[in-house]
């Protein structure tokens, strides 16, 4: 499994990095930490590139490198990377790869478990390229900023998307898994099992009876899901909640929830213009939300 963590400003990226690395560890996956630099006008892109080369030649940090250095130090401080004299950040090499991608190579870095990369341009386009080129399975991004970004990420990126909103490093979390009979739910359940197992988190499975579905049918889905967790020795409870799916799940999720749910099976065109339930939940919830694909 491959995980992509997109970071921006330093303080805002702390929770994203921390939770992202926890997920990466729970899946024992390789991780790419990406800094996407500001989009440069076509008028000035070559001028900016010449100036950045000049900064490299003068051993001055080019924009973005300081953020990656901060991320690297943060990972060492949290023991996600073992600290050695040989893998200090100050001895790095920037490798210019294709399509606005630059990889940071540290002199003493032996493992390929964590990659540091920089990209420049429009964020959705860059992350989409990164996911397509390197086949990442989960993209993790902070919950701040423009909400439209999250919608576009979920819509266009070919990986699961984890929006890390209002996450506190020291808080004890529980996993909230809204389920129905869709394929997307099955994937969400698998992901939730892995994550809950690694970090010994409690799980609450919820479902909302909608349309023609009887309460009995929904209860059956809940029990079937609970069984899957129990087989993996994970403490799970179930709850049937009523009302509209989006509002009732948003109201049920608390600050200490991590919501894991499947992507909507809806037509992409309908999703683009009218949104989808998972997307509305991700936008309205004040806690981390993972939409699996």
């Amino acid at each position: 499994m491959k995980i992509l963590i997109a970071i921006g400003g330093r303080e805002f990226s702390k929770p994203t990095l921390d939770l992202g690395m926890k997920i990466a560890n729970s899946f024992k996956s390789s991780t790419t930490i990406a800094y996407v630099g500001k989009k440069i006008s076509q008028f000035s892109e070559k001028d900016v590139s010449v100036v950045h080369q000049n900064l490299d030649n003068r051993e001055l940090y080019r924009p973005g490198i300081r953020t990656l250095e901060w991320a690297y130090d943060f990972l060492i401080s949290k023991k996600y990377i073992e600290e050695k004299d040989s893998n200090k950040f100050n001895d790095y090499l920037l490798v210019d790869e294709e399509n606005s991608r630059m990889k940071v190579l540290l002199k003493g870095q032996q493992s390929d478990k964590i990659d540091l990369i920089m990209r420049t341009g429009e964020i959705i386009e860059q992350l989409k390229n990164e996911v397509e080129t390197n086949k990442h399975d989960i993209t993790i991004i902070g919950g701040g900023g423009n909400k439209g970004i999250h919608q576009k990420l979920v819509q266009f990126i070919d990986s699961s998307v984890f929006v890390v909103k209002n996450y506190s490093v020291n808080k004890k979390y529980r996993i909230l898994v809204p389920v129905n009979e869709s394929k997307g739910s099955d994937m969400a359940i698998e992901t939730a099992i892995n994550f809950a197992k690694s970090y010994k988190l409690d799980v609450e499975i919820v479902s909302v009876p909608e349309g023609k579905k009887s309460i009995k049918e929904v209860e059956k889905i809940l029990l079937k899901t609970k069984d899957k967790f129990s087989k993996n020795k994970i403490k799970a409870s179930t709850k049937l909640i009523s009302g509209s799916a989006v509002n009732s799940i948003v109201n049920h999720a608390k600050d200490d929830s991590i919501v894991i749910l499947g992507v909507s099976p809806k037509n992409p065109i309908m999703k683009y213009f009218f949104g989808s339930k998972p997307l509305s939940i991700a936008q309205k919830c004040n806690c981390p939300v993972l939409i699996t694909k």
Partner: protein
Amino acid sequence: MNESYKVISSSILFWFSQKKWFVYSVLVSIFLLNLSTPVGLTVAAYHSLIILLLVFMLVTFEPIPFPAIALLTLVLQVVLGVAPPNVVASSFMNDAVLFVMGSLMFAIAIVHQGLDIRLAKLIIKIFGKSKRLFLAGLMTISAILSSFLGEHTVIAIMLPIGLSVIKNIDTQQSDGKNAVLLTLFSIAYGTIIGSIGTPSGGARNVIMINYLQEFSNVSIDYWKWMKHAYPILIIQLIVAYYVLQFTFPSSLNNIKMRGFKKNIGKTDVKKNINHLFSCLIIIGIIFSWFTFNDIYGLGIIALAGALTFMIFGMISWEEINKNTNWGVILLFAATISLGFQINETGASSWLVMKFNELLATLPSNSMNVSWSIMAVLSGLTANFFTSSATVSLIGPMAIELHPTDISFALSSAIASGFSFLTVISSPTAMILYSTGLVSTKMFFRVGILMFCISIIILYLMSQFYWVTL
């Protein structure tokens, strides 16, 4: 749902989300093409104005690459009957385009020589007595160099010097943050202000000189431009110094004037010779601009500069090819070609006539009002559309307002150089923004004051100084 349907519809939606401004621009153009031609305009003139609007939208929102916009401009001029193919082709290349090409290549060659180390030492030697004087020196040297070599050359040389001196400043504290901003803005404002000083300071200046020669048969040489623009540059520099000191009050305690020394190795003999030769080439080119621009044109001289660097092996063609923005060269060539057609078809005369009709409805209709509107419009458009593209499209109208009075054309070109409001307006602003140390809001907040003061300075100089020349 069928998986291939999902993939295809998702791809189309992604294309639309990235290119929506292209779709909107095309729809607006098709809508306008279907309206009846306004009274007083020929069909060709009307179509040239529709292409102008299309180019404005596409360049502002950048939904497709610049070379694509350039090619679209050329294709539409012929397809919509604005001009025959041979006329479009011949207006595509002139001295202004050669200047854009030559100055971009020349800039890359100069930056490649690593002259910033020597320049930093020189600035310290002259202005090193105090930190405030040092920043004033950075600003002044940036302005002087930028007036001759252009913004993109100077910012590439000066920014490493600026970033070296602020390298270890803690930006969490307001004093430190202000010191960083003061240093960066001193270099940026010096560079932006300098670019109005001589014709070679910016492509927009050369484009306007070319238009004046073609449309009004008025010739402006290097000296004449400098006599008009340099006094404005000097006043603007003094104002900018105080505006920045006022906006970013700082003790400057953390600035390390000799910070750049840690970043450089010792210069060797070969490098010394290279630097000496580079300086000789630069001086030779500036001297040629002063003395031979009437005979050879500014563009050919700039190309000669790049050529000399290549012949003497001081830079390879691969390096120049890799770093030259060919898209911008194509775009300028196409917009200049469109500018010529807007003039030839009579579209610029029609626009000016409408503008004058509008002015006639105002209570005080005078030259001053039309000058002010034109200058402010040029300045504002340049801030959202970049200066050279603005002059290449608005220039013909500015000349048409008063074909025999060069103050209108000069003011339009100079006001287009007031790139203080947005980060997309000039390479300097974009490079400053790309450092991540300056936000768009910050740039606008400081810039709005400078923009207004600069327009007032330009007005006063055109009213009271230019008339004495």
